[in-house]
């Protein structure tokens, strides 16, 4: 290792540069970091799926993994009908979904979109000859809908929504309408009557229209009204996204405005930069040359850690608690270096030659470094496993930081010190802190 320090330093430099380009775009001079909602802006909603009876059979729909996956798809389509937004819906066992909508600060609208089960039911009237009352019974549900769109009606006054049915459903619908010719049929959406109409002739083409939509009070916004177009589009979106077979309960929700997000980001980056700067200054002031190499290793450590958070395919997101955990890990990363250099100093005071003191320092400090990292790593891992979402981000960055610091503080610092000692011939005892 001693004679090849130069090569190692080159490799180290190349690796650091590669990591740097993972997080920094030189053309736009921009940092490419995946930020959490709390550092930009958006809405976060945590929901629980609740068992509900199937309207046709009356059986209870249990929350299974399949139902959860179905709900993820439904939410994706509903919240992101044209697929242009970066909406993240994550299923969380056993019965949770986390919905994150960047840049959306209208929490109420998002909540309403999530809360709706969007169950379409087509009901037929049943006349009871004994009580002489008409009851409505569900004859079909909306599971067979393949698509829906809004269009203006032919008279130009109102809007309508056309939805298409798949083959089985259209056959079923044909039979139903044949049975109901001359009588009434009701279309219900989430238990609310959307329209009822006289069936004039059997409908067998597999497409059905909800007509006479002319706007009205907006259920998403208090005191506002929707135009006919808006109402028709909302309905069409909900219908084509499909229905949820279960009910939804909101557990937790929050929004962050761009102002707050930008401020949090700026503050935490400032704190991070100052923390890093002060620690480096202190290390150089106290430990001289070894301190300087540790500072270089620390900067490399920062770059590598941020790059690790950016590895494609891994869903690491940098959140505010995450940054705090990371800043903390900077302070802890030099811990190992302090251990090594203290030992190095001790050996130098005892009169050992520099080269020997360096190897003893690294060798003797190793068990303590390992113990320290393992215990911290355990703590971080437990946080990641048992913690709630906020804590998990913190645990993860701390864990990633602990793993990398074990490598940077020992191997990288050693490489740099060896390079300074053997290649650059910096061999004065004073520069090593004696």
């Amino acid at each position, binding site marked *: 290792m001693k004679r090849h320090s130069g090569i190692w330093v080159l490799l180290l430099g190349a690796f650091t540069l590669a990591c740097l380009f993972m997080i920094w775009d030189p053309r736009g001079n921009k940092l490419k970091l995946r930020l959490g909602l709390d550092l930009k802006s958006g809405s976060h909603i945590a929901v629980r799926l609740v068992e509900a009876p199937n309207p046709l059979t009356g059986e209870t729909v249990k929350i299974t993994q399949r139902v959860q996956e179905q709900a993820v798809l439904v939410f994706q389509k509903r919240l992101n009908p044209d697929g242009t937004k970066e909406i993240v819906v994550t299923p969380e066992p056993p019965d949770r979904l986390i919905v994150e909508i960047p840049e959306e600060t209208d929490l109420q609208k998002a*909540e309403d979109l999530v809360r709706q089960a969007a169950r379409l039911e087509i009901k037929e009237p049943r006349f009871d000859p004994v009580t002489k009352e008409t009851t409505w019974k569900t004859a079909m549900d909306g599971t067979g809908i393949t698509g829906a769109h809004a269009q203006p009606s032919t008279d130009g006054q109102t809007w309508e929504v056309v939805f298409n049915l798949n083959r089985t459903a259209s056959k079923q619908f044909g039979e139903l309408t044949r049975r109901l010719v001359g009588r009434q049929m009701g279309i219900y959406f989430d238990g609310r009557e959307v329209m009822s109409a006289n069936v004039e002739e059997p409908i067998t083409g597999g497409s059905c229209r909800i007509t006479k939509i002319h706007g009205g009070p907006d259920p998403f916004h208090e005191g506002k009204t929707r135009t006919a177009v808006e109402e028709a589009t909302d309905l069409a979106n909900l219908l084509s996204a499909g229905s949820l077979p279960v009910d939804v309960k*909101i557990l937790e929700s*929050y929004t962050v405005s761009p*102002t707050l997000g930008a401020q949090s980001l700026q503050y935490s980056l400032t704190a991070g930069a*100052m923390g890093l700067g002060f620690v480096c200054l202190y290390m150089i002031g106290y430990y001289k040359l070894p301190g300087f190499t540790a500072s270089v290793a620390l900067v490399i450590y920062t770059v590598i850690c941020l790059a690790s958070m950016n590895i494609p395919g891994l869903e690491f997101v940098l959140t505010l608690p995450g940054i705090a955990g990371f800043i903390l890990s900077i302070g*802890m990363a030099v811990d190992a270096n302090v251990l090594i250099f203290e030992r190095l100093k001790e050996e130098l005071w005892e009169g050992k030659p520099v080269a020997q003191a360096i190897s003893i320092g690294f060798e003797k400090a190793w068990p303590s470094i390992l*113990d320290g990292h393992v215990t911290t790593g355990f703590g971080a891992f*437990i946080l990641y496993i048992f913690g709630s979402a*906020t804590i998990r981000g913190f645990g993860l960055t701390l864990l990633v930081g602990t793993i990398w610091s074990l490598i940077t503080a020992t191997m990288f610092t050693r490489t740099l010190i060896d390079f300074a000692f053997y290649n650059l011939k910096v061999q004065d005892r004073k520069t090593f802190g004696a």
Partner: protein
Amino acid sequence: MFNLAPLSWVGLVCWIIGLTMAVIWGRSFRHRQRNLMGNMGIYFGISALMLVLAIGSLAVKGLNFGLDFTGGTILELGSPKMVTTDEVQKALEDFKAPELGDRMVQVGANMQTDEEGKQYQRIVVRVTRAQATAEGGKQLENKEPAALEQHLASKLGDLKQLGTASIGPTITGELRYHAFLAMGVAMLVQGLYIFLRFGMQWRYGIAANVAILHDVIIMVGLFSLAGRQLDSPFVAALLTVAGYSVMDSVVIFDRIRENDQFYGGKKPFPEIVNISVNQTMSRSVNTTLTVLITLVAIYFFGGSTLQNFAYALLVGITAGAYSSVFIAAPTLVIIDKYFKSAPKATVSYSTAVAPAEVDPVYRETGTDDGPKRRRSRGQRRRL
């Protein structure tokens, strides 16, 4: 960036002076050794005082649980003109849809600038509903947060929404459960690791866990004393401190073990502990210092969101650094004294270690019998 309140500047300067003094003190161990284990009474006294203060505060003041633990709704608003807490409280009084239970208001001390260059003052309103929902939730639902915001805007003038959060009863219940679970598991796992790592000697694990308990109680107690809000990052801070405290103790234990093997039965255990603590003092001070530097940076420059978190860690890590030197190591000595795991020599403090004027405290009355101290792994050669 540097627009700190005058009081914060005082705090910052105090921290810098304190840290500098700690460095000078730590460095002084290079030139002379101190009889640290001779003043155990003082250390335990200081800790007892802090623990009494902490537990007293917990009993009298209790904890100020944050939204994560209590459930409820928070509105964060920006006001273009300065308002006072009383004004906001007054505006909250006649909001009746729904009836509000707890009402807490915090207003920023000065104006801040947003991304468009406009000035605003930050207002944080935390409320719960008087009548819980069917599921026992205390948060505002559906259109209620927006209604409250409009109500406040009608009383206080133009307000800008910075953020809202609503937390229901399921989440708060889980958080409490997970916090305790994580804490318990962490202590158990770390204790077990030390037990295995230190050649199945349970006293190291016990001493480390005594230190953790000490740190955690002081941390929670001082949080209660400061009246700060206990939120979920606090739980993370608690576990970090537990981990850090262990790590700090482990380094000293490592040295104790090394010296123990080196001196064999030639020196009494308290003296070996004393030598080890002296040798690692400079390291103890420096590692704590680097962490504290970053925490001071987060506390003073990291914005209000991270301040609670940084405060918790500042208290916890300072306590952790203190406890590993002044609690964990002495505890080890006490365990060794009362639960003799091995016979040892009748030796008082040798003058080479303790300054002559310091009274030798450890005068073992036992007899010098038996073989050398237990040795878990073969004796290591000290280079």
